[in-house]
């Protein structure tokens, strides 16, 4: 029965996402290490980290909202993954398209923000303020990208986008049809993932890791899990929009890893941007590219 199949899909999708996300975290760390001429962590390090965090003795909770915040952060991503079609698993892709997904992804962010707020640590609040500002910075070009892609494919349904790209071959891939928009998306990808060089909101030396300042034990563990989802989601969205998604995991996985790896490797070369510089940067080049890209595709 379809319903049962769907249920299995819904269960499977977050688990897959989590596993792939873990691998991505590992890859990121390895790339970072290589650029800094270090060896980098062993393969199972991310799993060790999570186990370690969840089994810590000292776990300070600052109240109910602190806990709910973490739950929202993880749960929101778990839900969001079911909207992301991957090979063989469409999940809920037809129940809510790209726009829904974009807004679903704000729920974990909001959860984290609320949790951090409850901690009453000024550094945490400052971090959230910066993170939200950064979101304002990258979401504007991001939304341009989503609009352009939806307009070109004539749908906001991600599964349909994949079908279109798969059926019509590489020439119909988003990256070929709208290279400028793809470039825009690539530029803002590190910011969406909250990674280098747009991580002023954690700035350990300045605001003591910002939102993470009061996170200990499983709270931190929750955020770690969230990070896995985050990387995975970013990779899959870009792949779906521009790289034809994937019919088979064998072609799909390299794409998403590549998508995450490329901007990361380049981004590691840059120093951290200040908040207002993030705004300035995001509203200048990606916006410009995005608008030109839109003008091209809408012509």
């Amino acid at each position, binding site marked *: 029965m379809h319903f049962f199949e769907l249920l299995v899909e*819904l269960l499977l999708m977050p688990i897959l996402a989590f596993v792939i996300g873990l691998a991505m975290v590992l890859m990121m760390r390895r790339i970072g290490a290589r650029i800094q001429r270090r060896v980098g962590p062993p393969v199972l390090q991310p799993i060790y980290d999570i186990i370690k965090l*969840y089994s*810590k*003795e*000292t*776990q300070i*909770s*600052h*109240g109910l*909202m602190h806990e709910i915040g*973490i*739950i929202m952060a*993880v*749960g*929101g991503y*778990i*839900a969001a993954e079911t909207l992301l079609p991957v090979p063989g698993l469409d999940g*809920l892709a037809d*129940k809510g*398209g790209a*726009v*829904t997904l974009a*807004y*679903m992804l704000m*729920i974990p962010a*909001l959860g984290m923000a*609320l949790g951090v*707020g*409850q901690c*009453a640590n*000024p*550094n945490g*609040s*400052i971090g*959230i*303020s910066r993170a*939200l*500002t950064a979101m*304002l910075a990258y*979401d*504007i070009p991001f939304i*341009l990208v989503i*609009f352009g892609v*939806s*307009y070109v494919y004539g*749908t*906001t*349904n991600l599964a*349909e986008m994949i079908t279109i790209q798969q059926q019509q071959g590489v020439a119909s891939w988003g990256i070929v049809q709208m290279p400028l928009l793809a470039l825009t998306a690539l530029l803002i990808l590190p910011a969406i993932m909250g990674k280098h060089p747009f991580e002023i909101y954690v700035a350990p030396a300045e605001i003591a890791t910002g939102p993470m300042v009061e996170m200990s*034990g*499983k*709270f931190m*563990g929750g955020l770690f*899990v969230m990070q896995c989802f985050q990387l995975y989601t970013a990779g899959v969205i870009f792949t779906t929009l521009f790289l034809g998604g994937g019919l088979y995991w064998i072609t799909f996985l390299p794409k998403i890893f590549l998508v995450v790896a490329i901007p990361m490797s380049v981004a590691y070369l840059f120093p951290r941007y200040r*908040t*207002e510089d993030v*705004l*300035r940067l995001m509203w200048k080049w990606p916006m410009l590219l995005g608008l030109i890209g*839109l003008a091209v595709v*809408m012509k």
Partner: protein
Amino acid sequence: MTALDNLLLISAVTLVIAVLAGNSRVGGWLVTIMYALQGAALMMMSGLGYSTLTMVQSSFSIEVLSQQLLWRFDALSWFFALITIGAGLFCSWFASGEWGEKYRDNGGSLRLFHGALALNVFSMLVLLASGDLLTLFIGWELVSWASFLIMALAGGKAFGYAMRYISYAFAGAMALLGGLLLIYAEVGSFDFQSLKEAVPTMSSATLWLLVVLLTAGFGVKMAILPFHLWQAKAYAETPGPGAAFLGAISSRMGLFAFIVVIVQLIGISRLVEMKIPFTFLDAQDLLAWIAVFTIIIPTYIALRQHDARRLLAWHGVGQTGYMLLGIVIANDLGSAGGLMHVFNYATYQAMLFMVVIAVIHRTGTSNLNKLGGLFTRMPLSYLAMLVGIIGLAGLPPMNGFVSKWLIYRSLIVDGSPLLFLGAVIGTLGTILSVYKLIHNIFLGQLRVEHVAVREAPLSMVIPMMLLAAVVFVTGYFPGLVLDWTSAVQASIGIPVLAHHLGGIDMKGGLDMIWIVSVLLVGFGFGTLVFFLGGRSKRVHQLDNYAGGHFLTAETRYHYSDNFYPGLMHLIGPWYRNSFEWLERGLISAVDTLSTAMQGLYRNAHPSYLLLAVVVFALSWVIV
């Protein structure tokens, strides 16, 4: 007696009861029950909301100046009346308990408050029932002055803001009157139908004049740009639940009239034909752009507010832009989104105002820099506000998301990237701003003076919780509201949106039942994952460290003022108060003219010298 007669009669009786018994302890509850009765009377006409009934006439009608004045309800009126009465009910409920007693103890006249609220509801119903352009104007004026009354109740500062409001509103009303009389001059009747028939033959110039006049008239009430200055301050200073009521529905009357006259009678398709010379734009684009700027500018003004009520009120102005945008786009998605947003917005805006007023009730301030950490003290209020801000920001799973999604989707279908971008910029600003709101009030450090604060009384919490339930349920099952909007779409003659209980069935549709369910399940799994970890130790709210130092309760470490310094560093200089300057410029112009005229009257001689010479020369020539 038709159902509409009953409704208006009950509403009038409510007004009488409010005036007679408003001051007594039971008076408020009595009035609240009367609102419930109004709701019941409205439900007698619920066929309007489900397209099984097209129109309910009032048996009351008079003939003035050889004009037959008519009152009737159609689906649009019914939909707006539902929101109006709902807002009245919840606000009156909210006001009837402790809030009212405190208001009275502080020297306020509860009789006047309930009276003004009932008058507002009554006049809005009269406006919604208007059956021709003249009754529309009469209702319009009634509504304007009724809201003036409730705004001015607080006295002091509120007088100034109410005065500003009425200056705007009356000028707008005069523009409207000009427009309506122009229609009369062109069409020869105030009848809706004859206007509709005459529109195709009207010249473009006349139509432009009409659209400008009418949009200005309606726009003042909606507070669209550039008439947005009055609203936030006036609403914010309205006493207690009055602010919630005004915020929820009052300026929606402008939208109602806009829909009736511009969308229904003149028609968006006619607007598309009206090109602006030397540009690629037409009248529809112009309106859409006004709507987008109405979204962006007030939202970012809201971001800078320090007062919770002002912040919400400014968002109210911004949210109007979404409704107008959706309705101006006028395809099935957009108009449904715009209409649905009216309902959704009313629910969460009323609730948010109620929370803020509950906070004021308990702490005595709505200054965002003087609050904090109230989550542990007022958890239910916090929950209501959380639901409200998720709705206001337009995130799933609340109803605000659905209406905004519809509007976004309509813009994608319409192929208007810049409008879309503007709408999203507004949403992002809203997210920033509402986080600041909830953070500064409920999260962070609890102030020492607020340690003893208790949860708001039940008379306040219950309406909030009910509204929160509405916000969530209509987000879960948007079909409930979409049924009504579809009836409205059918009745005003725009394409009807095909929908089901969960949302919209189309290519790239939306099914909120699935989305919300999966979100809830996701949260469930999140909880599971969370409790997999070891036991956490709950520390006291005031047990805090920063930079290795213990922070005592006396130290103010709540990060609240200038919450987004990075952003303000960049966009701060863009706040130039240009519209304030414009307003002041206009006032000084009138003032200068006025001084000149007084001078003219004081120095009589030169003027009649001129006249005498003219007259004399004239008669000399003749004789």
